[in-house]
């Protein structure tokens, strides 16, 4: 009985990671659409979103079934609830990639406002955070998960910097406003992706240590749950 449950968990993890890989690929494609000015990549992103949406529903369904049928406890229960949350985060990451692609398509109709430096850098960081959060999930590595949470500050800083810089473009030239706002939106989408990576990492810490570190709650609560 127990072994079968393990098989089911393995299958679930595999499907979740597959979905994660697709979501990760979507971020790469969306940024490529913007930076390399390749509108065809946006089409790829929209196509992949359907796959992610389908996976999300299927995974959620499987988790609910397992919760009802197996009534897991302790670490298994934490794993299942975390998968449910990570599933949701990944679907949101895919949504953000779609948003970036949509905005990029608007931007591609206009000449470039400025050479893009911070945004690709930020995209690289956000992608690394997603990759590391998944790595932390696979290896049940709480230390790596904590690192991801710290990286989030760097992304937030770049997001602020992008905003300040684009503000100067808008003040100088009213014709730049539309494009600058679009770039600010993209920067915000990337910042949200980094937030989802942080959420995933917090879930990993929850699975491994049974400790809820969201909103720095661990500093207030007592000893970890078992």
């Amino acid at each position: 009985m127990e072994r079968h449950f393990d098989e089911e968990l393995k299958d679930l993890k595999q499907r979740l990671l597959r979905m994660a890989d697709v979501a990760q690929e979507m971020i790469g494609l969306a940024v490529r659409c913007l930076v390399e000015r390749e509108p065809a990549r946006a089409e790829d992103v929209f196509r992949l979103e359907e796959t992610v949406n389908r996976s999300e529903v299927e995974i959620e369904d499987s988790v609910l079934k397992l919760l009802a049928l197996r009534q897991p406890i302790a670490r298994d229960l934490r794993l299942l609830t975390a998968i449910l949350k990570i599933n949701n985060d990944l679907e949101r990451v895919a949504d953000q990639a779609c948003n970036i692609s949509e905005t990029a398509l608007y931007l591609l109709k206009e000449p470039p406002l400025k050479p893009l430096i911070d945004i690709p850098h930020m995209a690289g960081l956000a992608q690394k955070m997603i990759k590391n959060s998944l790595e932390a999930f696979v290896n049940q590595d709480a230390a790596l998960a904590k690192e991801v949470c710290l990286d989030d500050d760097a992304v937030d800083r770049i997001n602020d910097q992008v905003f300040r810089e684009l503000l100067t473009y808008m003040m100088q030239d009213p014709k730049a406003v539309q494009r600058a706002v679009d770039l600010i939106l993209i920067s915000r989408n990337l910042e949200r992706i980094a937030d989802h990576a942080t959420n995933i990492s917090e879930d990993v810490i929850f699975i491994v240590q049974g400790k809820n570190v969201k909103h720095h709650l661990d500093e207030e609560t007592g000893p970890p749950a078992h």
Partner: protein
Amino acid sequence: MTALAAVLALAAAAASIVSFLLLRRVRALERSLAGDRGADEALGSQIQAAEEARNRTFAILESMAEGVLVVDPEHRVLVANSALARAIGSEKARLEGRYSWEIFRDADINEMIDDALKRRRALEGEHSIPLSELVFHIRVSPVFGAGEFLGIVAVFFDVTKLKQLEKARSEFVANVSHELKTPLTSIMGFVETLKEGAIDDAANRMRFLGIIEDHSKKLHRLIEDLLSLSRVESGAREFKSEPVDLEALLRQTLLSFERAIEARRLKVESRFSPRPFVFRADAKAMEEILSNLVDNAIKYNREGGRIEVAGSMDAAAVRIEVRDTGIGIPEADLSRVFERFYRVEKSRSKESGGSGLGLSIVKHLVERHGGTIRAESRENEGTVFHLSLPRGS
């Protein structure tokens, strides 16, 4: 080479699986025979032989530059060598025993492994590793042992450099086509204008013919430069080792640029030590190097600026500096100015009429002499090219 590596990897991987299974079987036998003292000795040597064979195959796998991965039908990683771990930015210890879908964060690679396991057939394809510049040609083959399907072996060939070269080549072709087309379009345009009646327009026809001549010269120069570059690059050009008097060479070079120097009211200064400044090199190559560098120093100088050529030598090397007081090169472009057709600003070399190959030719000539060249620059202050050639080259 890669085919050989693939065969080697396949053989090593198959051997490692077989020895792995053999070892497992021997260990099972050992357990079942526990207590039977008579079999102990024979069993011991069997285990040792199996372990030695296993260690040998692992040593071979470890020494390979290609990444090797062996996965069983359940997706479990049986073998992953260090080259593979490096390729995907992980550690070997973290890979073995995991599921393949746990270690690759790339949908395409996972799909390929899936497919090969399901259909038990060989597959190959090119995949880039996410968040890295690396591109791999991956060859996956099924492994059978005694008619039993044991899993797959995947060999990862690093083709990153090859891909970069391919990109550089296609960029070069695109650039050459563009550079050839621009003057040609102009020539064709003016010829057409002349044919359509402008030939009778006494006021303009000479001007038009002058433009055609200019562009023809530009085309000629570009083709000469391309041929020169290709001769140096391919190694077809032979270099002599003869005494070269750099001062005399500089005088000769300046003479050919006299008009341009006067037109821009430039001042040329030279400092050589010792004098006469003579060393052994290929005279023709030195002339090309000097002429390209002086040409640049004139083109990118400011009106009324200065050009300084300095030479010094010791027992080991000859050092030459060509300095201008021009617009300079931004820091970010400095390392790239020796690339073919690299332009600091799109508008810059169009105005100056260069082929975009001069510095690239210089770099190749210097390197063929066993020397080095680098550029130092401050924007709006000027640029210095430092050349160093080993003595006796």
